[in-house]
C-alpha cells in the first residue's frame, strides 16, 4: 500500500486500547456508524475486540448498495434489456431487484458492464455508438464524480440513472425513531471529506450527542472511538474531527459546487427504511436531458413487497442486530439474500454472517 498512510502498528493499538478501556462507560452505550467501508475496516481488523463490554458499535444505513431501492435496480435492468449498455459499480452487480440482480440479467445476455468510475462509462459512450447508461449510486463522496462527467460535455449517447443519496438527513431521521438509543455517531470519513465538519451542525447539533468523524485505518477508528467515549464521559457532546488529514472544516468546496450545480435535493426512498425527506439527489432541470428514463420504453416487473419476518428495517436503523432476525442465517444468507442488509457484501447481516458476528474473539 502507499507507504506512510497505513496506520496499524500494534504499539499504538495497545495505547489507544488502554485509553478506550479507561474511558469505558459504566452503562450500555451504543455508537452507530453509517458507512459500509467503516464496517469493513472494523470487521476485517477485528476492532470490536477493543470495545468495552458496555459499548456496542453498529452499522446503520451506511451501505449505499444496500439502501438503493429495488425499484432503481429494476429500472437499471429494464434499461439494459431495452438495449442500453448499463454501466455499474461492481458492488451493485449481485444485489437483487424485485425479480433478479444485474448479474443474472447479464448472464441472460443484457449488456451490463462493471466500471470503476463514471468517467469510464463516458469513455465507453465515446468509443462505441451504443446508448450508454451510468447507474449513479453512492453518497456525497460519489455524487461529485457524476456531476463532473455531466459538466464535461459527455457525448449524446450517454445518460445517467441517478440514485445518489445524502447521509446527514438519514442520521437525523434515525434519531427520530422510537427506541433508537443511539448514544453517539461515528460519522463517515470520506463523505465528510466532501461535506466538511460544519455540515453536521445543520442537522444534528441540537440533538446533543457526540458526533466524531472517523478515518478508515485501524488506528483512525480506535482514535475516533476513544474521542467519542471521552465526550460521553465528560458530558461534552459536539461535532469532532478525528480525520483531519482528510477532512477540512469546510470540506471540499470544488466537489460541493459540482453537486450543487448539477443536482437538487429530493425526497427519496431508502431500501428497507422508507422515504427520508431531503435525503436524495436528482438532476436539476438544466441537466434533465441527461436523465436516462425517457430514452427507453421500460418493462418493469411487479415491485417487490415487504418480506414477512425480515427485520432489515430494524437492522438498517440500528435498532436490531442481524442475529435478532428470524431469517438470519437460515432463509437469508449471502448466497441467497432475502433483505438488503444481506445483499451488499458490506451490509451488516452479510458481514455478521461471514465474520461470525458478535462472537468475540
Amino acid at each position, binding site marked *: *500500500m502507499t507507504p506512510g498512510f497505513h496506520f496499524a502498528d500494534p504499539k499504538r493499538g495497545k495505547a489507544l486500547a488502554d485509553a478506550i478501556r*479507561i474511558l469505558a462507560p459504566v452503562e450500555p452505550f451504543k455508537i452507530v456508524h453509517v458507512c459500509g467501508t467503516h464496517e469493513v475496516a472494523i470487521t476485517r481488523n477485528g476492532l470490536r475486540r477493543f470495545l468495552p463490554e458496555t459499548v456496542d458499535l453498529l452499522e446503520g444505513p451506511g451501505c449505499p448498495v444496500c439502501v438503493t431501492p429495488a425499484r432503481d435496480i429494476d429500472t437499471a435492468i429494464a434499461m439494459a434489456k431495452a438495449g442500453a449498455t448499463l454501466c455499474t459499480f461492481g458492488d451493485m452487480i449481485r444485489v437483487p431487484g424485485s425479480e433478479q440482480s444485474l448479474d443474472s440479467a447479464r448472464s441472460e445476455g443484457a449488456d451490463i458492464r462493471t466500471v470503476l468510475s463514471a468517467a469510464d462509462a463516458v469513455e465507453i459512450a465515446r468509443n462505441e455508438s451504443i446508448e450508454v447508461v451510468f447507474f449513479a449510486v453512492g453518497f456525497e463522496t460519489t455524487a461529485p464524480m457524476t456531476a463532473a462527467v455531466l459538466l464535461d460535455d459527455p457525448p449524446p449517447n450517454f445518460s445517467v440513472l441517478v440514485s445518489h443519496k445524502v447521509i446527514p438527513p438519514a442520521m437525523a431521521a434515525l434519531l427520530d425513531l422510537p427506541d433508537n438509543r443511539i448514544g453517539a455517531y461515528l460519522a463517515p470519513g*470520506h463523505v465528510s471529506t466532501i461535506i466538511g465538519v460544519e455540515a453536521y451542525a445543520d442537522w444534528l447539533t441540537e440533538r446533543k450527542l457526540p458526533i466524531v468523524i472517523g478515518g478508515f485505518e485501524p488506528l483512525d477508528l480506535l*482514535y475516533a472511538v*476513544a474521542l467519542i467515549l471521552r465526550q460521553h464521559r465528560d458530558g461534552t457532546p459536539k461535532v469532532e474531527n478525528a480525520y483531519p488529514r482528510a477532512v477540512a472544516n469546510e470540506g*471540499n468546496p*470544488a466537489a460541493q459546487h459540482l453537486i450543487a450545480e448539477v443536482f437538487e435535493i429530493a425526497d427519496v426512498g431508502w431500501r428497507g427504511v422508507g422515504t427520508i425527506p431531503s435525503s436524495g439527489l436528482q438532476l436539476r432541470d438544466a441537466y434533465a436531458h441527461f436523465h436516462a428514463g425517457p430514452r427507453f420504453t421500460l418493462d418493469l416487473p411487479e415491485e417487490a413487497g415487504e418480506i414477512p419476518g425480515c427485520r432489515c428495517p430494524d437492522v438498517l436503523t440500528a435498532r436490531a442486530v442481524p442475529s435478532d432476525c428470524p431469517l438470519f442465517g437460515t432463509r437469508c444468507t449471502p448466497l441467497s439474500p432475502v433483505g438488503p442488509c444481506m445483499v451488499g457484501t458490506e451490509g451488516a447481516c452479510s458481514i455478521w454472517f461471514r465474520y461470525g458476528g458478535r462472537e468475540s474473539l
Partner: protein
Amino acid sequence: MCLAAPARILSIDDNIATVDYGGVETKARLDTLTEDVAPGDYLLIHTGFAIRRLSAEDAEETLKLFDELAAAVAAEEASREAEESPS
C-alpha cells in the same frame, strides 16, 4: 462510504494526474479537487477522481494525534488514581 485509497502523483496533464499505488499506475481526474497539487503529492482517490490532497506531514500529524490522546487519557487516569489511593 467509501472506498478511497491514497496514491502518489507521478505527473499531471491538464486535469488528469497519473498516480501510483505502490507499483500500480492509473489515472485520476482532478476536477473534483479543491487544492492545487504537484507531482510528489499524495491524493485520496474515490472512483477515479481525487477528493483530497495528502502530504507526508499529514501522516506525521496523524500519529501525533493518536499519541497525544493516549498520553492525555493515561495521565488523567494516573492522577485520578493518585487522588483516590490512600497516602
